[in-house]
């Protein structure tokens, strides 16, 4: 079988195909086959409408002459002849319908067919726009293909347009010819004369009018109406042979010159060979958009739906008025609030230029946000610098610190020489009194002192622990103190070490301070003299310096033998008895930490105490750090501690062995009382002699 060329793209298709494989356009053969095999209900309407120009009968010269005499154009004469022929051959019509076609046509549709010629169809307004004279039977040839215009005849009788003021009607409606037979004859005569002149001067266009194609394209591309497409294509092809008036009847002349025929133009579909994927789809599919050169389509959306507009005219007149300007959408308030420009400058109706975007996908839509207008609202990201932001409170605190520093410098620099010397004298007097308070009790034997009546609990616990130490287990002493507080700590540790040495318990000592082991050796000197039997070889082992701070303590708690394998004199530390029994930190009889720093005591407690187990931990600490050690004693991590001279005196009192601490107690107490008196007197004097500082005025000399 031969292939059927597509009327749109021109490509060959299978004869059985109903639509073009390339562009999905309806094919001729398929449509005809469908029309033959399936009942087309629209065919019933053709009884009362003029036949297609494709079935143009032979031209009757006599009838044409008669019509010329009557002043009727040729094309109208041909239409009437065709109608007469069809009326004279009813059997040919019936052959196109199935036998039960009449029975299948609804009654209401039959009534419409009967009544439609006598009614004033709204299509008259459409014909007026196209320049075709309205007539009860004379319909333009091109209207035969427009099925939607036929449907307009179904509409009930509408109010006549003349009910509206003439100035409110559209321009095309104003161009419509007047109603009435006389007027109809007049303008038909004028039209005939012009058409005859044009038919004599011009040849029929070889190419189909693009207007016709465009005008029919609205229905041709509708997939659900195959029958009008068939007629459309056939009429488009045969329109080439139509006389100029008839061809122009299918077109819409320009509004400026409705009677002037439209010049033939090149059909853009002839050049369409298919869709190219790499090009713009819209540019390939849509016709050229040059509205000035391209004539107005005879069938536009507004016109095709004119009957709907008329139906809507039953509503209030204001709503039925056709408006060329699209009414802006009523956007919600929250969307309007999003548009800063609109919120500032008013609604889009007030200033449509602000919201009517001229380009982009939302072009022409009012009330939309302009993306370009939002660009200035975007700001570059904030840059954070490395400068310090100081708050007001911080500035106030810094000012307080500055005032304190300035005050001390002012007192040093602003003092006069006389005042400065008096301060120096007072400073010397205080120092001399304190030295006397320290020295006189040491010189004078039997100086008064107040022994503690009650013994602190931590001292009692330390004393009991030392007394309960096993003899065969050595004691590990950590001497982590420096020379500044050697005097206090040496007096504090002597009673404790005296108890240990009295029991002949071996001692191994080390220090995390570089000078601690040496200072501890010096502190042992009076005890070695006091206990000469204790100085047997191997009873005192100097393990030296333990590096690493808290990390070194961790290692010591884990494995003391590996951490400190040698003594300070580079001898094996763990070979002599009783140290050879030590394998872990808990094998010691006790751990004694001597320090003036609370942080050092804390390191020992936190790092080593968990590995000690039940081995007691005793701390000898300076009085200034005793409050920081008290919580560890309360929690049981520290068995007992001795803090300062007064606790050492208490320990000696418990041991009933007064030593250096008791001998220096008198000096200690007298000096403290002296200092208290000095501070009290100085404070009272300051309260009495206090004069608030007055700021120096700039005009007065200092």
């Amino acid at each position, binding site marked *: 079988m031969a292939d059927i060329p597509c009327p749109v793209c021109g490509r060959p298709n299978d004869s059985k195909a109903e639509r073009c494989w390339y562009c999905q356009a309806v094919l001729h053969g398929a449509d005809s086959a469908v029309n033959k095999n399936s009942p087309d209900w629209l065919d019933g309407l053709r009884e009362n409408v003029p036949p297609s120009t494709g079935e143009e009968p032979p031209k009757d010269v006599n009838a044409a002459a008669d019509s010329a005499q009557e002043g009727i154009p040729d094309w109208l004469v041909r239409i009437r002849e065709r109608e007469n022929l069809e009326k004279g051959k009813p059997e040919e019509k019936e052959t196109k319908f199935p036998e039960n076609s009449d029975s299948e046509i609804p009654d209401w549709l039959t009534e419409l067919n009967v009544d439609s010629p006598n009614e004033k169809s709204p299509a008259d307004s459409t014909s007026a726009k196209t320049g075709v004279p309205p007539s009860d039977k004379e319909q333009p040839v091109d209207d035969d293909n427009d099925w939607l215009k036929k449907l307009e005849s179904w509409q009930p009788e509408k109010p006549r347009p003349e009910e509206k003021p003439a100035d409110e009607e559209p321009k095309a409606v104003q161009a419509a010819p007047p109603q009435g037979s006389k007027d109809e004859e007049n303008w038909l005569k004028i039209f005939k004369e012009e058409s005859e002149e044009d038919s004599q001067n011009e040849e029929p266009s070889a190419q189909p009018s693009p207007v016709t194609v465009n005008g029919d394209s609205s229905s041709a591309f509708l997939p659900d109406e195959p029958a009008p497409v068939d007629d459309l294509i056939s009429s488009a092809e045969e329109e080439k042979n139509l006389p100029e008036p008839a061809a122009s009847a299918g077109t819409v002349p320009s509004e400026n010159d409705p009677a002037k025929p439209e010049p033939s133009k090149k059909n853009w579909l002839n050049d369409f060979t298919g869709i190219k994927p790499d090009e713009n789809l819209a540019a390939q599919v849509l016709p050229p958009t040059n509205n000035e050169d391209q004539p107005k389509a005879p069938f536009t959306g507004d016109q095709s739906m004119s009957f709907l507009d008329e139906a809507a005219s039953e509503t209030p007149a204001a709503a039925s008025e056709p408006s060329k300007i699209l009414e802006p959408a009523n956007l919600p308030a929250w969307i309007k609030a999003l548009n800063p420009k609109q919120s500032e400058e008013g609604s889009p109706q007030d200033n449509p230029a602000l919201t009517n975007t001229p380009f982009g996908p939302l072009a022409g839509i009012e009330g939309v946000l302009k993306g370009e207008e939002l660009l200035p609202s975007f700001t570059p990201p904030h840059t954070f610098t490395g400068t310090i932001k100081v708050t007001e409170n911080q500035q106030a605190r810094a000012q307080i610190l500055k005032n304190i520093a300035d*005050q001390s410098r002012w007192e040093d620099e602003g003092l006069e020489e006389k005042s400065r010397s008096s301060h120096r004298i*007072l*400073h010397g007097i*205080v*120092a001399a009194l*304190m030295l006397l308070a320290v020295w006189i009790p040491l010189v004078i034997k039997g100086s008064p002192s*107040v*022994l*503690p*009546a*009650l013994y602190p609990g931590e001292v009692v616990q330390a004393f009991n622990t030392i007394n309960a130490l096993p003899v065969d287990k050595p004691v590990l002493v950590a001497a982590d103190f*420096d*020379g*500044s*507080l*050697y*005097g206090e700590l040496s007096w504090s540790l002597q009673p404790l070490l005296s108890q240990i040495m009295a029991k002949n318990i071996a001692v191994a000592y080390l220090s995390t301070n570089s*000078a601690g*082991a*040496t*200072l501890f*050796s*010096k502190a042992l000197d009076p005890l070695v003299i006091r206990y000469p039997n204790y100085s047997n070889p191997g009873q005192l082992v*100097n393990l*030296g*310096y333990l*590096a*690493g701070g808290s*990390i*070194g303590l*961790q*290692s010591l708690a*884990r494995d003391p033998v590996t*951490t400190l394998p040698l*003594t*300070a*004199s580079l001898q094996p530390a763990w070979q002599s008895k009783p140290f050879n029994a030590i394998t872990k930190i808990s094998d010691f009889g006790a751990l004694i930490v001597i320090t003036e720093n609370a942080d050092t005591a*804390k390191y020992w407690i936190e790092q080593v105490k968990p590995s000690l187990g039940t081995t007691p931990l005793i701390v000898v600490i300076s009085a200034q750090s005793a*409050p*920081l050690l*008290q*919580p560890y004693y309360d929690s049981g991590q520290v068995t007992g501690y001795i803090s300062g001279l*007064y606790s050492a*005196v208490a320990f000696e009192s418990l041991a009933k062995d007064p030593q250096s601490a008791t001998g220096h*107690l008198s000096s*200690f*107490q007298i000096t*403290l*009382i002296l*200092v*208290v008196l*000095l*501070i*009290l*007197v*100085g*404070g009272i004097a*300051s*309260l009495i002699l*206090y004069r608030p500082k007055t700021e120096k005025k700039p005009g007065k000399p200092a």
Partner: protein
Amino acid sequence: MRSPLLPVITFIVGILVLAGYFLPIPALISIRTPMLDWAIIVSGVAALIAIANLIFGVHWRRLRDPSKDHWFSALVILAFLVTFACGIFFGPTNLGYQKVVTAIEMPIEASLMAVLAVTLAYSSLRLLQRQHNWMGFFFFIAVLVFLLLNSGIFSLLPNLPILQNLISGISQAPIAGARGILIGVALGSLLTGIRIWLGSDRPYNG
């Protein structure tokens, strides 16, 4: 941009040491033990490097600067060299060598502490003159009370129950403050450790 290698190493080592501290797993302990030994060695070497920097990086540079007085720097360098040589030659347990600490270092530090005691006593005379407000007065009273408490003079009146209870109650006040300080220090240490562990603070970058 700083290399992420060091924070990663810090994180892994911190995890291993911390896990080895809380979990008595032999595998973790075997990893943790040499790491702690390395840390001890590195800390000892760091102390030696610090001394070398003090001598040759600071004082030796001052000697080469003619605009500055370089006598004390020369003395420091000389004392260091002698002490270092004696320590190497005699050993740290030598009695003569220990005189460096017991005859020089300890008296100097003790003297400074004695001067500090006198200076504090003299400054306390003018305490209310400088801080003439209620905080200064409160501090003034607290100094007097705790000096008397530590002197033990209240033991003269052991039979006064009200006084003993009052003294016992006042003695607990520093302990309360010390607990607050310890809690703050503990939280600060924990936070510092976490920040170093997670790489927020990188003291190892120099």
